[in-house]
C-alpha cells in the first residue's frame, strides 16, 4: 500500500514540476498525428484513384504503359512503406540528406522530416484502404458515371468516393489513433513529442516508472477521446445520409410523396398533357 501512495506522490511531483514539458509533448504528438493523417489521406486518395484507372487491351500502347507504370510505382511505394518500420524510415529520410551531401544539406526542421515520414507512411496504408473502398462501391455506379460521359477522375470525385468514404472513414480514424501512438518513435530524430518528454524528464529525475505511468495515462486519454470523437463523426455521417425527407413542391403535389405511382393519377396526367417541346 505504501508503494502506491509513494507512486502517487512521485506522479504528482513530476506533474507539478514538469507539466509544461508533458503538455507541450502532448500538443506536438497530437499535431503531428493530425497533420500526418490528413496529408496521408490526401496521398491515399490520390494513389487510390490513380490505382483504379481502367485500361483496355485495345487502348494505345502509350496509355497502357503509363497506367501500368503508375500502378507499379504505387505498388512499390505501398510495399516499401508498409514493409519497413516507421522508425527506420525516419532515420533513413533524416540522415540520408546530410550523408549524401557531406552535411551540406539537412532537414532544416525536425517537424518537416517527421511530418514527411508520418504522412508518407499513413499514405501507404490509406492507398490500400481507398482502393478497397472504391472496389466496394457497386460497379453499376461506375457504369452509370461512364455512360453519361464523366471521366475517371470526375466519376471518382462526384460519385464513387463520396460513397466509398463511408467504408474508408473508420480506416482514417484507425490510422489517426495508430499515429498518435507510433509517432513516439520520432524521438529518434529528436522530435519533441509526448514520449520525448518522458525521456527528458527521466533523464533529469530517474523516476522511470512514475513518468511511464503519466505517459500511459496521457496516451490513453488522447486515444480514448479520439476514438469517441471519431465514432460520433461516423454516426453523423450515417445519420445525415440515411434519412432525408423528400421535399415535394407543395404546388405540384398535394398528396403524399411516397405513394407508388403505379396508380398515380398525377403521373398519367402529366405524361398525357405533355405537348412536345422539340
Amino acid at each position, binding site marked *: 500500500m505504501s508503494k502506491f501512495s509513494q507512486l502517487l506522490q512521485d506522479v504528482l511531483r513530476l506533474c507539478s514540476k514538469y507539466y509544461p514539458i508533458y503538455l507541450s509533448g502532448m500538443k506536438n504528438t497530437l499535431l503531428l498525428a493530425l497533420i500526418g493523417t490528413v496529408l496521408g489521406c490526401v496521398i491515399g486518395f490520390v494513389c487510390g484513384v490513380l490505382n483504379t484507372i481502367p485500361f*483496355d*487491351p*485495345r*487502348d494505345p500502347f502509350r496509355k497502357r504503359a503509363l497506367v501500368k507504370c503508375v500502378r507499379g510505382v504505387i505498388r512499390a511505394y505501398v510495399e516499401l512503406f508498409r514493409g519497413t518500420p516507421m522508425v527506420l524510415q525516419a532515420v533513413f529520410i533524416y540522415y540520408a540528406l546530410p550523408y549524401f551531401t557531406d552535411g551540406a544539406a539537412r532537414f532544416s526542421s525536425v517537424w518537416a522530416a517527421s511530418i514527411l515520414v508520418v504522412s508518407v507512411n499513413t499514405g501507404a496504408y490509406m492507398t490500400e484502404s481507398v482502393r478497397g473502398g472504391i472496389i466496394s462501391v*457497386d460497379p*453499376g*455506379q461506375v*457504369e*452509370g*458515371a*461512364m*455512360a*453519361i*460521359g*464523366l*471521366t475517371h477522375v*470526375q466519376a471518382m470525385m*462526384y*460519385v464513387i468516393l*463520396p*460513397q466509398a468514404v463511408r467504408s474508408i472513414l473508420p480506416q482514417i480514424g484507425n490510422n489517426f489513433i495508430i499515429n498518435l501512438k507510433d509517432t513516439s518513435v520520432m524521438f529518434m530524430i529528436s522530435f519533441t513529442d509526448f514520449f520525448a518528454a518522458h525521456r527528458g524528464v527521466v533523464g533529469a529525475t530517474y523516476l522511470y516508472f512514475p513518468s511511464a505511468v503519466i505517459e500511459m495515462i496521457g496516451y490513453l486519454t488522447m486515444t480514448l477521446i479520439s476514438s469517441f470523437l471519431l465514432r460520433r463523426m461516423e454516426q453523423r455521417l450515417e445519420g445525415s*445520409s440515411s434519412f*432525408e425527407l*423528400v*421535399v*415535394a*413542391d407543395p404546388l*405540384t*403535389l398535394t398528396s403524399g*410523396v*411516397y405513394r*407508388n*405511382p*403505379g396508380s*398515380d393519377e*398525377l*403521373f*398519367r396526367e*402529366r*405524361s398525357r398533357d*405533355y405537348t*412536345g*417541346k*422539340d
Partner: protein
Amino acid sequence: MDREPILEVRHLSKTFGTNPVLKDINFEINQQDVISIIGPSGSGKSTLLRCINLLETPTAGSILYRGRDITELGKDVYSYRAKVGMVFQSFNLFDNLTVMENCTLGQTRVLHRDREEAEEYALQILSRVGMAPYCNARPRQLSGGQKQRVAIARAMALDPEVILFDEPTSALDPELVGEVLDVMRDLAGQGMTMAVVTHEMTFARQVSNRVVFMDDGIIMEEGSPEEVFTDPQNERTREFLGRYLGR
C-alpha cells in the same frame, strides 16, 4: 429508309477470353428509329449495347457514329457517351446524389452548362417523366419504376441523339412496368431515336419500327414488327417467339 444513319455497326465482334459473344454484327440506327432487340438470354444483347456505348471495347469491326469510328475518338469519347444515352436494367442512379443532382451532373461536368441552366432543364425533363416533385429525393427513397424514370431523365438531360435501353423494365415489379413503358412510348412518339433490348413483346410490336432478333451472338433476323412477329423467316425466331407469345 432515307433517314440519316446515326450509328453504323460494321462487322462487330466481341470475345471475352475465348468466348465469342458477338460475331460479325451489322446493323444501323437511323434518325428516329425505335429498334427493339430481342433474343434469348446470353445471346449478346447487352454486350452489343455496351459496345456501342464503349463500356466494352469491341474486339474487331467498327462502330461509326456519324461516319466516325468510335474506337478512335480519343478524348471525344466523353462527349460521345453523352450523345448516346444509356438506361440500365439496374438503373445505376448515383446513390449519393439527389434526383435533381443525378440529372445535372452530366450537364454541368460534361456539357459545361452552368448550374442554373442545368437545374432548370433538369426540372423540365423530370416533369416530362413525371418525377419533378421528387427532385430532392435520393434514389433509395424511390420505387423501381420511379428510379427508372429518373434514369431516363438523366440520359435525356444531355440531349442525346440516341438512347440505348438495356431491359429497362426487367428489374421492375409487374405493376410498375407500365409507367416506364409509358414514358418510353412518349419519347418514341416525340421522335427520340432509341434502341431497346426488351422482353416486352407488346412494346416491341406496337412502338418500334424495326425488330432485331439475336441469338448466339448473331443477328438472326431483322425487319418490321409485322414481318418478324407475324411471319418470322428464321426457325430460331419462330421458336423464340412461340415461347413468348404462347405459340
